């Protein structure tokens, strides 16, 4: 296959980023028009889910990286 799929073409990368970020922004803005049936009060704060989700995911990645320094071995560690 000579022609690269448009997803993989270098010149389309900025477009993909813009579309991706727009979708993310819209999901946060949707809170302005959609009534949230949260159990806790803080769930109704604007953008709570986005901020909480991003923060916890960042922490998990950070923790995994730190753990990786301690325990990670190369893929070939057990190869004879």
């Amino acid at each position, binding site marked *: *296959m000579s022609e690269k799929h448009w997803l*993989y073409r270098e010149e389309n990368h900025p477009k993909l980023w813009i579309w991706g970020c727009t979708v993310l922004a819209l999901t946060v803005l949707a809170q302005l028009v959609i009534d949230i049936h949260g*159990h*806790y009060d803080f769930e109704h704060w604007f953008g709570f889910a986005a901020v909480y*989700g991003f923060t916890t995911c960042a922490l*998990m*990645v950070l*923790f*995994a990286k730190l753990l990786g320094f301690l*325990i990670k071995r190369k893929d070939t560690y057990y190869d004879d």
Partner: protein
Amino acid sequence: MMIEAFPPGLVMILGAFLLPWVRGVVRTGLLLALPLVALYLVWQVPDGVALSVPFLDYTLEPLRADRLSRLFATIFTLMGFAGGLYACRQARLVELCAAYVYAGSAVCAAMAGDLITLFAFWELMAVGSTLVIWSAGGDAAYRASMRYVLIHLFGGVVLMAGIVAYVGATGTVTFAAFDTSVPGAWLILAGFLLNAGAPPLSAWVGDAYPEASPSGTVFLSAFTTKTAVYVLMRGFPGTEVLIFIGLFMIFYGIIYALLENDMRRILAYSIINQVGFMVTGIGIGTELALNGTAAHAFAHIIYKALLLMSAGAVLYRTGERKCNALGGLFQTMPFTAACGIVGALAISAFPLTSGFTSKSMINQAAADEHMLLIWLALQAASAGVFLPAGTNVPGLV
């Protein structure tokens, strides 16, 4: 014997021994027919005890049905069919036979009404699953299967000791919710949890499953951990310690999957992660939590099989299982890529997928019980599942 009183799982176990004697189309036909016959029989069993057999001083109930056991027996037979279909053209004969003994034992375990029958099929599952790993061939698979069988025989001994102590103390072999004031119940819990991939013995999942053949991994992902979820649901609903064990499993699965490069090992870790949600749900123990757990087990078996089938197809075509060596397969394997993306969306609980509904039920149950910290952890983990599962799988296909 009436047809309603024939244990459906036995159809698959006995049928597995017929497979070597037939060839070609007949074998494929038998392979696909056995789980469907078993599924039909599962739905013929009436509610309550359908078969009881005297054994020593006890009465065994090898066949008992209610909504919960029927649900798990249904998904196990369906997965037997899907796995058989996926495996029939390229798996070794010994793997097919072992997988059907394994799947049939899971169905029998799900419909066992007493602890002795449960234990017998529990151990038969360990034998079947070990042979499934071993049948992939090669030194790595042999060693992995030996490590796997050691862990599971140990789990079996713990379970056996627990059952003996529990039956000795209470005098009943009926498999119902355990009285946790009896010490034997805690040994039974430990035996069950080992098969769920709970700490401290979680490593066997990520160690053994990726060493099986592509079809073998599909079979393995469906039965052992989910049978453990079933027995925990029936035996230990609302046992608080399970909440914390489940949360540990959830984060263990995410963190280790983030560090991993082997695509099938990532999926194996995400089994621990998803079973963690179920174990947490069992620990919460409310009606919504248990229904969510059952729904999540059912949905998880399907989308995890889909993910492992996609990964297996990639491995079959490329011979490569390390993520950094793969990529761009979207163009050459578009159908596999589409299946992988659907599976990744479901495991990430994307809206409109089965995983969204079932995982939301467990999370909501935590909120309903005003378990704020647990709810926050579950929400964080629900977002975090997307990290390894959502980024690697579509990334490589």
